């Protein structure tokens, strides 16, 4: 038998009278079993019949042995491809041998007389399915299981390179099913036949398939290995049984926990290093960012990675996909475009108990903790795939953990800390926060609580946020090293660098230091995307306070309303706390008030949520701007590039300024006629001293930040020096360089390179 190239399709469109499924591309090679799964009536048989040529392809191509099927005539196809169909045949007075003999049709002459070699093939086919003893019985007198075996023998007698079986195990009892599948597997391996079969028994499909094609009425949903296809959430989605109780099936193998953990083979690909913390906010993100910049400076193509982020704060990539801002910052440190692969899973809290789950940049659904806990094991392939894509374009990947690796109650199915480290075979740097105290308990305790194999992954410790003289801590390092048997890679000083921070616990929120020029950001309970105002940190004389105190608002020179995840609830909160009236009275005093996104919506007259996108209902806004917002179900996520079209006298300096930023919101705002526009494209409006815009990153351009500051200062009759102000992007880059320099000075980079198996002085720069 010649080496079979099997069968493959290219952008195949199938269907009877109309296009049922389009763009199907996959291949079955010799010696390989590919199974097609999916609900009843989704087109599995149609696909198989089209491949076999019983139905015409409606588009695209089918290749047999590397050549277009249409280039063969019927008999040549029959010599290469045979099929077992679902149609139950009912031949009269035909023995099993007669039935098998029909498989020789394409090989016999005009009269159909069987030669000796034909007879031999028939006997072999009967033997291959152990059917010699029923060979002379009438086909109509044997059982279903035996019939299916005979049909298999008939297909084998056709001596095909490709065998297509349409639900071969249906109607069969357990014994026959096992026998038939065993025979199919044996034939595949022994004869090197390419086997394509449709099947409903997922357990069996998992065991015998090399590749699985999963389809439903919407089309082919996934083509991949067993591990890639048989995840609980995917199977539930495929068959439309989300949320259905499947316990009646007993323990089904596609349920979570059955599949052994796949492992990423990282050898020969990117080097990996992972940063984990003893708790939240120990400075993992910053340390990872610093490492990213250091490796980048040292000439390595570096990328950040965090499997799962929990943050209110998200960023929209060029493709309109959402990801955590920490990885954006780290990507900027690597001097590369942020990509959603760097943070495949993002959780955005929408209430105390629920989070929006964003996978590969797109919202999947809102889940509570329990639901997510069940869901997250399904995310392993997503994470692996994202990491895989990233490693193709990177030499070093800096992976960041989340929270603590010793959350003992949550360790089962961990995909963010040690579980991920194991998956990626990554050495781990464990970071503790000395500023918050208990550094020994943090580091030694965490190491101690880990399992033996996890402990081995830890390659070094880092003491972060150290204040004062390092020399005094020499003893501390000794203790840490002797107790944990791990090297301390360095103590990093408390960085007074100002950065985007992802977590809501960010220290920034606590600052109440008074500066000559005060900006008050209303600290809404569901505040999001507050990096909008980080650019103001550049100026010494400018203080930004995130506040919920009326005095702060009244004392400020500029009031900013930030974006929020829950506009209506936050509006109600404003009313409840009385800040609502404070803002109104400040507006009356002609104080400059600027709202961004959700804050902009709050400035309007009404906010309505008929579709229950947030919490439902409607709420009267501040009414400072003549517009109203209705929440739709569609989320707007775009990058914004435009100008300040118009502005009131109070911000006249901004007119014509270029604006770069992004929009991310659910609501649609209708601006009343006669309102002055603000940012272009109907993304904002203004009235008097009140301004609103949907554009995040509005202040990042130095002209705008400076213009706003100067106007606000003029109103308060203050002087402000904005010369030190640069574009936020530039500012950030300088900060990153500074950060990297500091960390480099305090961290044993040689050891870190060694951990990754890289030479320390690649370019002699260190």
């Amino acid at each position, binding site marked *: 038998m010649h080496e079979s190239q099997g069968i493959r399709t290219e952008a195949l469109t199938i269907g009877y009278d109309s296009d049922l499924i389009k763009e199907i591309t996959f291949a079955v090679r010799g010696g390989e079993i590919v199974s097609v799964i999916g609900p009843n009536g989704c087109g599995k048989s149609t696909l198989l019949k089209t491949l076999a040529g019983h139905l015409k392809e409606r588009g695209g191509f089918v290749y047999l042995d590397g050549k277009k099927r249409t280039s063969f005539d*019927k008999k040549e196809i029959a010599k290469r491809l045979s099929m077992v169909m679902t149609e139950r045949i*009912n*031949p*009269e*007075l*035909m023995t099993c041998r*007669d039935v098998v003999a029909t498989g020789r*049709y394409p090989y016999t002459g005009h009269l159909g007389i069987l030669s000796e070699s034909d007879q031999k093939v028939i006997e072999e086919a009967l033997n291959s399915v152990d059917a010699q003893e029923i060979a002379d019985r009438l086909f109509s007198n044997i059982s279903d299981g035996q019939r299916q075996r005979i049909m298999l023998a008939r297909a084998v007698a056709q001596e095909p390179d490709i065998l297509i079986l349409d639900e071969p195990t249906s109607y069969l009892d357990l014994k026959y099913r096992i026998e038939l599948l065993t025979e199919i597997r044996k034939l595949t391996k022994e004869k090197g036949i390419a086997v394509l079969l449709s099947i409903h028994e997922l357990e069996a499909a998992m065991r015998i398939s090399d590749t699985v094609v999963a389809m439903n009425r919407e089309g082919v949903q996934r083509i991949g290995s067993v591990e890639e296809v048989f995840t609980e959430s995917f199977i539930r989605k495929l068959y439309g049984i989300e949320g259905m109780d499947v316990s009646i099936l007993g323990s089904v193998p596609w349920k979570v926990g059955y599949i052994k953990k796949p492992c990423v083979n990282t050898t020969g690909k990117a080097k990996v290093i992972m940063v984990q913390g003893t708790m939240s906010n120990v400075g993992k993100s910053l340390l990872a960012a610093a490492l990213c910049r250091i490796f980048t400076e040292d000439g390595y193509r570096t990328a950040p990675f965090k499997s799962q982020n929990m943050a209110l704060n998200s960023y929209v990539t060029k493709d309109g996909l959402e990801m955590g801002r920490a990885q954006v910052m780290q990507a900027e440190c690597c001097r590369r475009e942020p990509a959603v692969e760097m943070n495949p899973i993002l959780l955005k809290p929408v209430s105390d108990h629920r989070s929006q789950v964003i996978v590969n940049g797109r919202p999947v659904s809102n889940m509570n903790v329990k639901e997510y806990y069940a869901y997250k094991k399904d995310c392993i392939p997503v994470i692996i795939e994202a990491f895989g894509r990233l490693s193709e374009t990177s030499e070093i990947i800096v992976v960041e953990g989340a929270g603590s690796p010793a959350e003992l109650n949550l360790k089962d199915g961990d995909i963010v800390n040690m579980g991920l480290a194991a998956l990626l075979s990554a050495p781990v740097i464990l970071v503790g926060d000395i500023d918050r105290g208990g550094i020994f308990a943090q580091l030694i305790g965490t190491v101690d609580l880990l399992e033996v194999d996890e402990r081995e992954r830890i390659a070094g410790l880092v003491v972060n946020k150290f204040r004062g003289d390092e020399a005094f801590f020499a003893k501390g390092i000794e203790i840490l090293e002797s107790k944990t048997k791990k090297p301390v890679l360095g103590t990093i000083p408390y960085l007074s660098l100002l950065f985007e921070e992802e977590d809501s616990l960010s220290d920034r929120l606590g600052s109440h230091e008074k500066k000559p020029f005060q900006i008050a950001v209303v600290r809404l309970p569901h505040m999001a995307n507050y990096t909008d105002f980080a650019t103001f940190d550049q100026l010494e004389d400018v203080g930004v306070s995130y506040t919920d105190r009326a005095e702060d608002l009244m004392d400020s020179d500029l009031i900013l309303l930030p974006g929020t995840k829950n506009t209506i609830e936050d509006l109600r909160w404003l009313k409840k706390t009385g800040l609502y009236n404070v803002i109104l009275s400040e507006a009356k005093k002609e104080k400059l008030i600027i709202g961004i996104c959700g804050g902009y919506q709050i400035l309007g007259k009404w906010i309505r949520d008929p579709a229950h996108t947030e919490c439902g209902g409607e709420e009267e806004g501040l009414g400072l701007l003549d517009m109203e917002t209705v929440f739709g179900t569609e989320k707007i996520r775009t990058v914004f590039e435009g100008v300040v079209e118009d502005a009131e006298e109070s911000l006249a300096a901004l007119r014509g300024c270029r604006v770069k930023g992004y929009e991310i919101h659910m609501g649609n705002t209708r601006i009343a006629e006669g309102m002055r526009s603000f940012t272009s494209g109907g993304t904002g409006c203004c009235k008097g001293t009140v301004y609103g815009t949907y554009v995040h990153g509005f202040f990042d351009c130095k002209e705008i930040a400076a213009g706003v500051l100067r106007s606000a200062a003029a109103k308060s009759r203050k002087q402000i020096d904005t010369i030190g102000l640069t574009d936020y992007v530039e500012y950030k880059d300088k900060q990153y360089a500074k950060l990297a320099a500091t960390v480099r000075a305090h961290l044993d980079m040689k050891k870190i390179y060694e951990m990754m198996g890289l030479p320390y002085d690649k370019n002699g720069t260190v």
Partner: protein
Amino acid sequence: MNQKRFILTMIGLCIALVFLAVLSLFSGSVPISVSELKEIMFGQVKEGMNVNILFQIRLPRLIGAMVTGSALALSGYLLQTFFHNPIAGPFVLGISSGAKLTVAFAMVFLLSKGWKIGSAGMVLAAFAGAMAVMLFVLLLSLKVRSMSILVVCGIMVGYICAAVTDLIVTFADDSNIVNLHNWSLGSLSGIGIPEVELMSVIVLGCFLFVLFLSKPIGALRLGEAYAASVGVNVRLLRVFLILASSLLAACVTAFVGPVSFVGIAVPHLVKGAIGTTSPWRMIPVCFLGGAAVTMLCDLIARTFFAPTEVSISSVTAVLLVPVVLWILLKKKKEGGGPYA
């Protein structure tokens, strides 16, 4: 084992044919002795009434009966294969009735205009009718998947054709009526040498043609999908089957009139005898079996109530309907089947 059964069946049928042929030659209102027959047959006596009786009446009729039976049995076998239906046959599906209608039409209207249609014209007219009904049934078969409904439809079409034929007879000239009436009941009386020759040529041709299709017909036993999957050009095969079965049925109808139940019953009888459905064996056995059965029926038709002759269809019905019923009951017991 099958091989032996096939050979035994063939031998048996040949013996039966010879026996029936001899019997047919003897039977009739004019008694002919064995020695006389021998002399006439071997050409020792060349003149006389009995010579004419034998060569102009009994021999054509005998061969006519044989050919009729062969054609009907073969046609039935092809239709049963085609429709995957054990009770399909030219009569049941209304094909014979369609042929009868067009032949009646041709006879009445063309003869009244003074045109004489020859044997070939009759065959052509019958073939047109047979094809028309066949195509109609085929269209139905696209719509209805259930075989029993298809058969009922065929019978209904048969009734319509019969009704229209009656109508034509009603308005026909008196001179034609007698002719037409005899013919429409189905009778081998009055068949002549030229007709028998034409029939024989057509039926033998069809037989060889069908025999040549044995291989694809054999593959079709597993259903069209499987046949297609081993490389049978199913569409072409269908066309061949339709043409051959219609031509066979039409040919019989044109000369003998509609003869019922031979087409259904004979394939089943011979199938049981040889114990296989291999077309290589079925086709010749049907051919001989149909000939034997029809010869027997014709013999009965003309001798049982002699000198009165009954229509051959009456005899075939009485003898073969029980066979058809037996088939149906047997199939029912097996359960399911494609016509359930």
